[in-house]
């Protein structure tokens, strides 16, 4: 028997016990795909009734009225986008500047502690953000602008921006830190100041990563449920200013699921809204992933 053959046989026996384990490992890894498909299937199945009945009116209808069987989600979509953009307007500059400062300017011994505090900010539960919002931001907004109620789109945007900043900081911070040291040293060696190096070397390279972090922040903000439903005032209309109350898709689902009879039109319409939200976040997350990977190839 040749030694090659012997090798083959012995390795076959050695690997025999590994085989079932490998299958377990593969199934565990594939579970995420299976879960996502099941999620799409179940949410779409429950929402099918409302979609077949109302079609695009579920997205563009202006009225949500149980008595007259009207289920139009436009005010909710509008509210969601409004608070999300408001939050990003604050979170993008604060988050990106923080990421640059922490990964490029701050002395080394301060980087980990400050990153840790931002990480703590990310782990505070949304119900506590809502609680803090009610306790402090709502009364502040109401007295500052002289409003009857401080539960407005602005209030929600402010709290939501705090919840989005850690996502933007951690993702773009990671990308900025990954810029090769030699690139920066080359620029510094040519006489550039640290700021010029950041502007001409670090930022152009990490541009796509920063963009991706903003998209992930958008996905996080538009899906936020509990905090927003505690402080946004929850009124389904299309507000003309940030000082009016709004209702968002997730908070509308959270507050109406309990009373909707299983299998009813309302129940199905809520799942329909859920499906819209799920598809929005899928698209945003997939896009962010693609942007990061393409950026990595160029970098």
């Amino acid at each position, binding site marked *: 028997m040749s030694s090659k053959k012997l090798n083959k046989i012995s390795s076959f026996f*050695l690997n025999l016990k*590994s085989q079932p384990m*490998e299958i377990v*490992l*593969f199934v*565990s*890894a594939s*579970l*995420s*795909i299976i*879960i*996502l498909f*099941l999620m799409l299937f*179940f*949410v779409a199945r*429950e929402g099918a009734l409302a979609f077949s009945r109302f079609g695009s009116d579920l997205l563009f209808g202006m009225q949500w009225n149980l008595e007259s069987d009207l289920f139009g989600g436009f005010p909710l979509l509008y509210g969601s986008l409004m608070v999300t953009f408001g939050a990003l307007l604050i979170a993008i*500059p604060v*988050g990106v*500047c*923080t990421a*640059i*400062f*922490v990964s490029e*300017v*701050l002395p080394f011994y301060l980087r*980990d502690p400050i990153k840790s505090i931002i*990480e703590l*900010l990310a*782990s505070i*539960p*949304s*119900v*506590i953000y*809502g*609680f*803090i919002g*009610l*306790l402090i931001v709502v009364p502040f907004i109401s007295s500052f602008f002289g409003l009857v109620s401080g539960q407005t789109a602005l209030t929600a945007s402010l709290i939501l921006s705090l919840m989005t900043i850690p996502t933007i*900081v951690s993702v773009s911070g990671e990308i900025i830190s990954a810029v090769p040291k030699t690139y920066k040293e080359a620029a510094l060696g040519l006489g550039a*100041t640290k*700021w*010029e190096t950041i502007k001409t070397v670090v930022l152009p390279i990490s541009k796509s990563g920063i963009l991706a972090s903003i998209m992930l922040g958008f*996905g996080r903000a*538009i899906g936020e*449920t*509990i905090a927003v*439903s*505690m402080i946004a005032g929850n009124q389904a209309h299309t507000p003309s200013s940030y000082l009016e109350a709004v209702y968002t898709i*997730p908070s509308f*689902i*959270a507050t109406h*699921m*309990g009373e909707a009879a299983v299998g009813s039109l309302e129940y199905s319409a*809520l*799942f329909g809204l859920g499906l819209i*939200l799920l598809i929005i*976040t*899928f698209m945003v*997350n*997939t896009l962010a992933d693609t942007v990061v990977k393409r950026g990595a190839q160029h970098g």
Partner: protein
Amino acid sequence: MGSQTKERIFFFALGVPVVICLLAFFWIAATLFTGVGTLNMEFLTTSALQGGAFEMIVGTIYLFLGAAAIAGPIGVFAAIYLVEYAPHGKITRIIDQAINNLAGVPSIIIGLFGYTLFSRQLGFGISLMAGWLTLALMILPIVIRGSEEAIRIVPQSFKQAALALGATKWKSISLTTLIAAAPGIVTSVILGIARVAGETAAILFTSCVIITRGLPSSPLEPVMALSFNMYVQIVARGAPPESVFGMALILFFIVVIFSLVAIILRVYYRKKQPWLH
């Protein structure tokens, strides 16, 4: 204006947002601490039927421990596959993408899905079990990503030594790589717990009720939870926020302690793993 001065101005401008972030955290913590007077041993140990928070605290702990017990092993297995076994190909890329997407699904959708699949389709009803499975979906991506990183930094030579001694691939990984990666894996599970301990939207329809008689005696019974109770008291019952101060503080403590432990573990073991230097 010299470039030095210009640089200083730019850096100062960049530093302002950082200070905002730090202030925000301390401001939240300080606000919560103003309610520390509402906390006492009696509140922690009396039943909710008598105005305490005992069942909510234990319910919260039950929920995250069960979820971590489900998501932990699956997440570690998935991470081992992705680092050690996965071929560089289309399937691996799709799995990777799926994990990122799962991490980005809003918790309210996870809740809707958990309700239809676990509570209704599988017949678990509004129960601890349905809550475990639903929360496990949220922990899973965190454990996979954290464990992947922990496994990836273990030098190949550890595993190769075992392989050279005749161990199978799985045996070498489980005897060397996994042990070396254990601190990182534990950290990722703790981080996962920190993320779901205060989760509300995902357990809203799947496992919680506002009041129970004592603790659940089986996984098929509903539970009380701090986050759920805070939310329902305020939003559905219109209670003033001050009335849930005690619950908010306990929940904050639980979450911050878990996050801090994870952060400290990570820093500590990064220093202790000599192969990283």
